C-alpha cells in the first residue's frame, strides 16, 4: 500500500498535469469544444444581452435527447416573445403582434450559435489567440480572442468555462477591440433531464395569425437566368456560400437570397422587385447586425450581416444582374 504522503503527492501531480493539459489546449481546440458544448449537451441559463445601447434579458433551454435537439429562448423583458426550435422548424411567438412565425429549419445549429471550424485560410483574416484566464460567474474561464485583421469584419472575445467550454461571456468587437455587443450569462446549469413541459410556450395563441414560410427553392430549380444576381466587389476572403429563392412575407413576391461568407462572418443579400414609390437607399441596424439597402435595375437590394456597416454597403452596392454566374472580384 502506498504511503499517504505519496498518494497525496501523486494526486497533486495528476491534478497539476490535468490543469497543465487544459491550459496547453490550443485556442482552436477550445473553440471546437465550445461548439460541442453548445450543440451536444443540455443546458438551462439566463443571460443578459447588450447591443445598441440596450439591455435585454433572456432565458435559454437546450436539450439533446437521443440525438434530437429542442430549444426554447424566452424574453424576460415583458414582451412575452419566445422562440422554440426543433430539428425541423423554428417557431417565433410574437404575442404583442398576435402573430406566430414558423420557418423550416435550414440547419441544425443551436439558437445560441456556434463558430464554424477554422479553415486554414482564415488566418489571413483573423488572429486567434489565448488571452489568459479569469473567473466569470464563479467559474474558472479561459479567454479566447478572435480578432479581425481588417475593417471589413468583426472579431470575438469569448470567456469559456474551463470544465464545459460553454461561453459564459461573449463579446463582439471591432478591429480595435471596442465592444459592439456583449452576452453574459447570469446563471447556467447543465441538468441531465429537462422535461417536455419546459419547452411549451407560456402563452395562449388563440386568435394569433400563423405565418408559415415554405422551404426555399434553389435557384437551379427556378431555372431562370434572370435571377442570376451576384455581388462583384467583395471584401477579401468573402465568397458566395449559399443561394436560394424564398417567400419571406408575401408568397407572391419571391426574394432571391445570396449568402457571402469568409468562413466566420456572413452577409446575406436579399433581392426583390422594387415597390412603387420612392427609391430608398440607406443604412439600418438590428442589434449589432448592420443592413444597407439600395435600388439597382428596378430591384431593392438589401445586405444584412454581423459585419461593419461599410461591408454591407460595399456588397450591396456592387450587386449586378448578369447571365454570367462568375465575375466576382475581391475588393479593392
Amino acid at each position, binding site marked *: 500500500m502506498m504511503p499517504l504522503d505519496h498518494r497525496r503527492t501523486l494526486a497533486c501531480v495528476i491534478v497539476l498535469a490535468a490543469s497543465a493539459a487544459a491550459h496547453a489546449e490550443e485556442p482552436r481546440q477550445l473553440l471546437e469544444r465550445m461548439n460541442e458544448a453548445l450543440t451536444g449537451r443540455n443546458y438551462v441559463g*439566463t443571460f443578459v444581452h447588450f*447591443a*445598441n*445601447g*440596450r439591455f*435585454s*434579458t*433572456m432565458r435559454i433551454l437546450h436539450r439533446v435527447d437521443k440525438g434530437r435537439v429542442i430549444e426554447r*429562448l424566452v*424574453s424576460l*423583458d415583458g*414582451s412575452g*416573445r*419566445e*422562440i422554440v426550435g426543433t430539428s425541423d422548424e423554428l417557431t*417565433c411567438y410574437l404575442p404583442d*403582434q398576435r402573430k406566430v412565425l414558423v420557418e423550416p*429549419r*435550414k440547419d441544425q*445549429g443551436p439558437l*445560441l*450559435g*456556434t463558430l464554424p471550424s477554422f479553415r486554414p485560410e482564415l488566418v489571413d483574416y483573423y488572429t486567434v489567440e489565448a488571452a489568459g484566464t479569469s473567473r*466569470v*460567474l*464563479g467559474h474558472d474561464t479561459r479567454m479566447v480572442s478572435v480578432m479581425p485583421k481588417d*475593417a471589413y469584419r*468583426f472579431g*470575438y472575445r469569448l470567456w469559456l468555462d474551463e470544465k464545459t467550454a460553454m461561453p459564459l461571456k461573449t463579446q463582439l468587437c*471591432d478591429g*480595435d477591440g*471596442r465592444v459592439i*455587443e*456583449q*452576452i453574459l450569462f*447570469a*446563471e447556467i446549469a447543465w441538468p441531465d433531464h429537462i422535461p417536455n413541459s419546459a419547452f411549451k410556450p407560456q402563452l395562449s395563441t388563440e386568435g394569433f395569425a400563423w405565418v408559415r414560410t415554405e422551404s426555399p427553392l434553389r435557384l437551379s430549380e427556378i431555372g431562370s437566368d434572370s435571377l442570376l444576381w451576384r455581388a462583384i466587389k467583395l471584401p477579401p476572403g468573402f465568397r458566395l456560400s449559399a443561394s436560394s429563392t424564398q417567400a*419571406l*412575407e408575401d408568397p407572391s413576391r419571391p426574394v432571391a437570397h445570396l*449568402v457571402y*461568407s469568409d468562413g*466566420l*462572418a*456572413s452577409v*446575406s443579400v436579399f433581392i426583390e422587385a422594387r415597390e412603387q414609390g*420612392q427609391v*430608398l*437607399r*440607406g*443604412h*439600418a*441596424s*438590428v*442589434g449589432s*447586425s448592420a443592413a*444597407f*439597402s439600395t435600388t439597382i435595375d428596378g430591384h431593392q437590394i*438589401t445586405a*444584412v450581416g454581423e459585419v*461593419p456597416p461599410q461591408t454591407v454597403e460595399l456588397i450591396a452596392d456592387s450587386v449586378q444582374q448578369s447571365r454570367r454566374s462568375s465575375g466576382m472580384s475581391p475588393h479593392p
Partner: protein
Amino acid sequence: MTEPLNEQLSAFLDGELPRAESELFVRRLPRDAELRSAASRFYLIGQAIRAEQSAVRRDFAARVVAAVVQEGPVTGVVAGVTAMARNLPRSRLAGWWKPAAGIAVAAGVAMVAILVVQNQQGARVLPIAPPTAEVAKEVAKVVPAKPGSSSTRPGGSNEPAIYVVPPKGDSPLAPLNAARLASYVFAHSDYSSLPGRRNVVSEAAVQDDSAQSAAAEAPTP
C-alpha cells in the same frame, strides 16, 4: 442609484458578481427601467474607459462627461463611471478624467459621445476610425438642436455646444420598414455564426423597436 448598486452593476457587467447576486440582479433588470437605463450608460462608459485610444483633448472629455451626466441621475452616472474605473485611487474619483487618469480615459469618454449620438439616431457604432474631438464636433453639427433638448456649455463657456441630445424617433427616410427588415434578419440568422446569430435571434425575441432605421441617404422620387 446608490453607489453600492453601481458597484454591483460594475461587477455584474464584468462577470465578477457572485452567482446568487447575479441571479437576483437579472431578475430585477427587466422590472427596473431606471436600472436598465443606468446599466446601458454605465456599460458604454465602462467600455469606453477601457478602450485605449489616441489623444483627445481633456477638456473635450470633461465636457462630454458633463453632457452625459445631464442625461440621467448625476450621481448614478458619475458613481458608475468611477466604479468602472476601479483602478483609480478613490481620492481621484471626483476628477477622474484629469491627467492622472490619462489620455486613454479622455479618449474613451470622447467615444461615448459618438456612441450616444449615434445610438439615439438609431445608428450603430461605427467601428473604424477612432473618434477625435474634431469628429465629435462634426457629429454634433449635423444633429440639430431643438428647443428642450439638452446641450452643454460647461463653465459658462462661450464655445459652441459639442454635444446635443438628438430627438428620438424613427427617421422618415427609413430605407426599409421594420417588418421587412425583421424578416431579412430572421432569414439571415440561419447563416450567422455566434454571436451574430445569437444577436439576431435575441433581437427577434425582444422589443418591437429592435429594428431601428438610421438616417437614409438622399431618397429620390
